[in-house]
Structure formats: C-alpha cells, structure tokens
C-alpha cells in the first residue's frame, strides 16, 4: 500500500516547527513503501523551509510564497491549500494541531467537501481506512475516529504526539514553487499581535517543566516554582485553575485546553490533577507530584509522589538539585 501524505508546515522559532517535524516522521511511516510525503508550505518567505522539511523526511516539497500568506488567515490559507488539494488529490493531509491549525483543518475539510478529525495522538491504518485517536470529554474518554471522506482525509495532530525524526531522515526530493490561488479581496485582516509578557514560554520544547496549581495559595506562591524551574533550567507550567484565576498567563497552561507536553521531567507542585490537566502531561517521561492531599488524582499518573507542604518541600528540592548539579 502506498499513499501520498501531505504535511502542512508551520514555522517555529527557527525554521519549521517541532510539531511539523514530528508529523513528517509519522507521515513517512503512514505513506508506506513507495508512498510520498510532501511538505506543503504557505508563507511570505521560503528561507530555510525546503531544507527543514527535507531533513525531517519530506520526499517532496511544495512552496506557496506570497506576501498575502505572511500570517496565517483561514481564508487565504484555505484558498491556497484547497486549490492545490483539488488539483493533486492527496490521500491524507496532516496539520499541526495548534489553535490556528485546528481552524485550518476544519475550514479546509469543509472546502473539500470532507471531514476533519482534530487533535489526534495516534494515527493508524485499518486496512485502507486511516483511524485517529483523540481525547474526548476533556480526556475523560479516548475516542477512536475513522475518516472516510471521499477526498483527502484531514487530521490535525497534537504537538508531542510523535517522536522527532532523526535529522537527515529525508528525502532530498523535488522542491517545487507553486503560485497560490488567493481570494480576490481580503475580508479578514490581522491588525496586530501582542506576544505574552515580552518573552516566549517554550513549554513544548522544554526538557524540564515545573508546574504550579491552586496549592500554591496565591500568585506569589509561584516564586518557589520559578526558583526550582530556574535551578533545573526548565520552563514554568500551570494548571487551568490558576490561569483562569489570573495568577499566570494562558501561555503557561498545560492540559487539554492548554499545551500538551512531554518533557523528560515534569514536577507538579500543588496540582490536584484534574483530568483535563492530566491529558496534557501524562506521557511525560518522569512525573513528580508534590501535594498535601495523598488522595489527589495527580498521584495516579505520577512516577514519584511526595505528600506534604509544597512550601517546605519545593525549596528543599531547589537547594538539593543545585548542589547535585554543581557537584
């Protein structure tokens, strides 16, 4: 069985995003022997894109470069990608499952008269049918969903669902530039982008994440979490409860409605472990839970559990990790 799989590329901080690379790795497996993995890019500049896509496994690259594609907008991207898909009829289109990626998946599916399956964490062939697995009801259930669209089968894929392919996994195939089909006039415009707090919170790529929840008592309680994260060179995460309460910006939120993370070490401080939080971090390599309630659900997914006062335990951890890492 050989298939043509498209992966819609998103830019990251340098080159294409990590999630795009993860999906390219999976696409290669899904395409099968003799199948094709095409990296499809829309943007205003093609700098480094083709090389990045090829290095992560793309056997073909299509670049649609136009100033009107500078920032993602549903209408322009759907127009460009929809026209290309109608023309070339790929079997499958995979899209990084960011908020914009999910909007694009739904929009593109409707424009191609088919359907999208969102936020997939597994993708597998069942005979000739591609089946996605996704969290349902905030992660309380896992849904297995088949896509039987007559045209391209569209799936958005959760970040960190698949491992990064080894560098140089590709490809080195054809790079083609295609003039995008764009709407005559723009009905939607981006006025401005206000980045969170002047610095990027890179939870997705962090090897270590220290997260805080309600158990920290108040916004000032995050100081002990910040200190431990700094000692470990890690990022700071948070539960939805404290983001909703305004203690810390949304960019830090881990969970079904925030970011899905898979660091080597995840330390949850004063987080009880609502199912929607667990959905975003349960596949981390090593999970440490610190909570005063020994019955907190977070201990069910943790590898190491510490029952006690976060304000006593976390500063001790900071001190001892500092000593161990210096020694």
């Amino acid at each position, binding site marked *: 069985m050989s298939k043509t799989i498209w992966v819609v590329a998103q830019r990251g901080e340098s080159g294409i995003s990590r999630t795009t690379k993860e999906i390219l790795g999976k696409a290669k497996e899904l395409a099968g022997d003799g199948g094709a993995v095409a990296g499809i890019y829309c943007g205003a500049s093609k700098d480094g894109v083709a090389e990045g896509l090829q290095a992560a496994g793309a056997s073909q690259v299509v670049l649609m470069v136009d100033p009107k594609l500078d920032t993602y907008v549903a209408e322009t991207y759907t127009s460009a990608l929809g026209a290309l898909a109608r023309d070339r009829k790929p079997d499958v289109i995979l899209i990084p499952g960011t908020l914009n990626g999910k909007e694009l998946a739904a929009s593109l599916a409707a424009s191609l008269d088919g359907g999208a399956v969102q936020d997939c964490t597994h993708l597998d062939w069942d005979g000739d049918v591609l089946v996605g697995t996704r969290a349902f009801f905030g992660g309380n259930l896992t849904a297995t969903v088949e896509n039987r669209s007559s045209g391209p089968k569209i799936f958005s894929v959760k970040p960190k669902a698949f491992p990064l392919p080894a560098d140089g996994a590709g490809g080195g195939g054809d790079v083609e530039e295609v003039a995008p089909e764009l709407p005559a006039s723009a009905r939607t415009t981006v006025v401005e982008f206000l980045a969170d707090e002047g610095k990027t919170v890179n939870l997705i790529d962090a090897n270590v994440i220290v997260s805080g929840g309600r158990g920290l008592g108040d916004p000032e309680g995050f100081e002990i979490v910040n200190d431990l994260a700094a000692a470990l060179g890690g990022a700071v995460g948070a539960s939805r409860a404290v983001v909703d309460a305004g203690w810390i910006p949304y960019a830090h939120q881990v969970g079904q409605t925030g970011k899905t993370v898979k660091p080597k070490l995840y330390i949850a401080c004063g987080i009880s472990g609502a199912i929607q939080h667990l959905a975003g971090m349960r596949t981390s390599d090593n999970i440490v839970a610190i909570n005063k309630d020994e019955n907190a659900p977070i201990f069910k997914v943790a590898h190491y559990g510490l029952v006690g006062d976060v304000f006593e*335990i976390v500063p*001790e951890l900071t001190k001892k990790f500092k000593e161990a890492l210096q020694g």
Partner: protein
Amino acid sequence: MKAIVFVKEVPETPEGVSVSENGQVQAAGGGNFLTDPIDPFAIETALQIKDAKGGEVHAVTAGNSRAEKILKEALAMGVDNSYLVADDALEGSDPNAIARVLAGAAKKIGDYDLLVTGDRAADDNSSIVTAALAQLLDIPVLTFVSEVVDFDADAKKIRVVRTLENGRQVMEATLPAVISVMKGIHEPRYPSLLGIRKASKREVPSWSLADIGVDPSTVGAAGSPTKIRSLDPPPAPSGVEMITGSPEEMAATLVQRIMDKKVL
C-alpha cells in the same frame, strides 16, 4: 444587527457515555443532557452586542425534540427566538455534517450579520463547526475569540482579540462573519424568573431537513465523513513510588532518584 447563536446539548457527565453503532454519542440509560457550558458565553456575547447596538438574537440547535429544553434556556437568557432542527436523519451526524445543517438553518433565518458558537464543545472538544460554517456560507471566520473590541453593523466590520498559544492577536473581519468565543469572554447573565416563566410558554418552531433545504444524504451516519468507532477510558497509569520522610529527606531521596536516572 441580527445574530444567530448555535447551541448544543451535551451529556451531563462523561460517566457512562458511549457511542452507538452508527456513531451517535449517547449517555447511560438515556442519561441527562444539558446546555453545553460554553454556550451561555456565546449567548452573552450576542446579547451584549444587541444591548449596545440594538437588533435581534436567535438561537438554533440541531438534534431531536429533547434539545427543546436548551433552546428554552436560551430564550430565558433573553434571545428573541429559538429554532430547533429535528429530523430522524440526523442520527449519527459528525461535527462536519452538523455544520451543513446549521448552515442550512442560518440561510433559512437569513440576513444575519454575526454567527456565534462556543470555542469547543464539552463532549467532543472538536472545534470544527465554526470554521466549517464559514466555508459553507462563504463568510470570514474568527475562532478562539476572547474579546469583541468593536462591532460596527453600519460599516459591516467586527474587531476581536483571539487568544493563541503565545499571545493575543487582534483581527478584523467584514460582516457577516462567524466567531467562536472562549470561556471568560463575558460573565453570562442569569435568566430572570420572569424570563424563565415567559420562555416556558413560548413555542419553539421545529424544522425538518427539508424545511431548511439540506439533503438528508449529506448528514447522519451515512453522510458524515468521520465516525467515532469507540469511546474508551484513558490508558491505565503505571504505578507511583511514594517517597516518605521529612521534607529534607524526601527532597534528598527524589534528587538521588532523578540524578541516578540521568534525566538532567
């Protein structure tokens, strides 16, 4: 200003939720269905625009006669009219197909400036209907809206803030447009007692697929491009090592474990 809010009933809890052979989500023993918790935020958004600019707000859902209950709740909150699309052919519809039904209902109501939905349904969490509606009706879409900055029905423009992973994006679109709103955009109002009493006496018109010009073969189990095969509990956890002692002892043991595993 004419707004249409699309609402949805969802099972009260995930306990006992399953999927039928044709892909229809069902609650144990026909269990309780409620208004999706995100929907009052969508209704409030439309009502606040109406309060400021005048006009009318309509609520629509697709399903079966059971969903009349949530449309009466929308009336009690203050929407002017509610409409139910109920048809046996809808059984097993996926979100992609439901978007076709709601697009049909929007055309039937007609002459709208703004369509509003929640940003993700509490049960399927898919976020499909909003962007699909935009395509089917050929209007702009703005999803994950956390603030409506300006709504100008005369100049036919809306300006919103979208909250994305790494910041806030200010966007503008021409009207008519469809938006999805996030929880917390406004505090939803409580229905007044008078509102509840009045709503209980209102008739909710029910439309069939034929009434709204939607071909039954494009919806339901057979017409849906995707299908839920199964709903299962999440994978079982691996087991935890509880570390005990004083805070200092616990910290020492944990640091040892992590250093031994060469994680850092």
